[in-house]
């Protein structure tokens, strides 16, 4: 009994240590965002929302936030269209050359160091004479998140019985009707979950964006620029806000995933077949 209890205690300690080292710095940033600093030390008597107020008056940051939202939504929508088409192709003709080729290639931008992806896209856009700006960032992010959406959709499609499509055709449905009434309804949850995940990835993406941005900065790029100039407590507030937003997305994702469990929402378990 004693030994068991000791084991339990050590296990709990290790767990606590891991969680603390993960979350304490984040918590610290959050706490510090409410206080001012004097000569490099925190002045604990100055609790206020002042930094946040200052943050909201900063028009450049507001623009950056809007850009981030715009880029995220647009990139996810673009990626969704291509991922859906690619996933349906891979599912209906798994042994076709195009599906096999895609299977290998689609993950490259996701797995390559972002600096490589960003640089190649930059060279491509320059050679093609396309000016850098929000559209190029959207393309970059769409390429980056395509694989994750594709994989989640394909997992769901592969979990669906092939005979559902056969049955729909057998009952007189055209390809378009089969897509609309049978395939799309079954992709609703995976589209939602992969969309949230892809949006979160896009929202945090910095390296590729740095290469592709023109004069419009996204939030992480703006943050990066601010740090280079000098660290101000304002940055703590900004990090706290981004964190809060990311947590909301994570919770939403977990919730959607939880509701979707049992109907092919599991990303890893069903991918290999």
């Amino acid at each position, binding site marked *: 009994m004693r030994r068991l209890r000791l084991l339990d205690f050590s296990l709990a300690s290790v767990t606590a240590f891991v969680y603390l080292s993960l979350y304490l710095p984040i918590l610290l940033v959050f706490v510090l965002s409410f206080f001012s600093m004097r000569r490099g030390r925190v002045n604990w008597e100055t609790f206020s929302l002042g930094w946040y107020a200052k943050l909201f008056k900063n028009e450049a940051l507001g623009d950056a936030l809007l850009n981030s939202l715009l880029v995220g939504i647009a990139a996810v929508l673009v990626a969704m269209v291509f991922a859906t088409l690619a996933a349906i192709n891979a599912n209906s003709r798994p042994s076709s050359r195009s599906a096999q080729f895609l299977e290998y290639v689609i993950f490259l931008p996701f797995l390559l160091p972002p600096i490589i992806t960003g640089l190649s896209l930059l060279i491509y856009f320059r050679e093609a004479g396309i000016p850098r700006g929000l559209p190029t960032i959207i393309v970059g992010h769409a390429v980056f998140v395509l694989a994750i959406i594709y994989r989640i959709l394909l997992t769901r499609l592969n979990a669906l019985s092939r005979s*559902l499509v056969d049955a*729909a055709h057998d009952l007189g449905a055209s390809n378009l009707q089969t897509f609309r009434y049978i395939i799309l309804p079954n992709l609703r949850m995976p589209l939602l979950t992969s969309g949230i995940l892809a949006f979160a990835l896009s929202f945090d993406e910095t390296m590729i964006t740095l290469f592709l941005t023109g004069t419009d900065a996204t939030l992480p790029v703006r943050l990066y620029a601010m740090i280079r100039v000098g660290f101000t407590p304002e940055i703590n507030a900004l990090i706290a806000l981004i964190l809060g937003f990311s947590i909301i997305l994570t919770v939403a994702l977990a919730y959607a995933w939880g509701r979707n469990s049992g109907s092919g929402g599991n990303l890893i378990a069903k991918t290999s077949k």
Partner: protein
Amino acid sequence: MANPETGSPAAADVGLPLLRIRGLGARFGTVEAIKPLDLDVNDGEFLTILGPSGSGKTTLLRTIAGFQPPSAGRIEFDGKDIADLPINRRPFNTVFQDYALFPHMTVRENVGFGLRVRGTAKAQLNDRVDAALGIVGLEEFDARYPSQLSGGQQQRTALARAMICEPRLILLDEPLAALDAALRRQMQNFLKTLQRQSGITFLFVTHDQSEAITMSDRICVMRSGSIEQIGTPRELYYRPKSRFVAAFFGASNIVEPCRIHETRDDATIVETPVGQFRISGPPPDSSSGLALAIRPEALGPEDETRVNTLELEVVAVSFVGSETITELRHRRTSQVFTMKTRSDPAARPPDIGSILNIGFDPAECALVTEAAN
């Protein structure tokens, strides 16, 4: 029985078959799943395609349905060639082995799907769905999702969905395979009754010979991508043409080699290692690998109908309830026979090692060849 190929009660008064298949073949890469074959399905009949797994029965059904492109041949429905028609324009419907119910739709939406994609008006659609649900006895369950139904209810939903567009032919791919034994028997009766009352032609695939016998008007036995024999259940049961069909329908006592000794008007006399026997009917056209097939239940104590006799030694006796199975051995040749008799509570089972005079009826055995064709 001049031509058992077309021996169907329905065949006599029907001119053209509803489904006419000529030279139909299918291949997967280099594998020939169906060798070019002919098959006629008459209007209103219950035709079962029976065969072990890998015999090509499901491929044949899928080729007719349009899920598998044919490599050769014609499929005519009601006189028109439909081999090139896309699946969704073919004038019949399928019940799938896994039912293939749409998981995100209720029973009502599933059943009404065929009408919905045809743009049927809402009121008419609802009336027809109600009628179809009434036929399969699922009126109370219309708002449920497939995952909330039992296996039998899912089966009925699939059936109602296939019937909603009033096809003249329904293809059924092992629809009872997933059900337990008791429910399967119940569904067999239900399907048969439904088929008779609706007059819809059923083309039914199964690997279960007892299922085929109880339900079908005619059975088409398949083996390695070819049709082995087509006939009524009685014909296949009592007059199998090949060893394969005989064994499939339980005629497990095979005596070989057989030599035709004499052919008379109504009977054939054959010479076998275990004796000379009289067999009803003419000999088969081919005589390659000729053998005599005797059903276990055809064997019994010698009497005035069981005129073919042989002396056999009792090897083992097992009581299995209503029947008693006796293993017998022919002393000189060591040929083993299985005899199935009705259990008699008054009779004492024979002693192991005793010699019995066993006989069988000339009408209850068949001369079979290596292959039917």
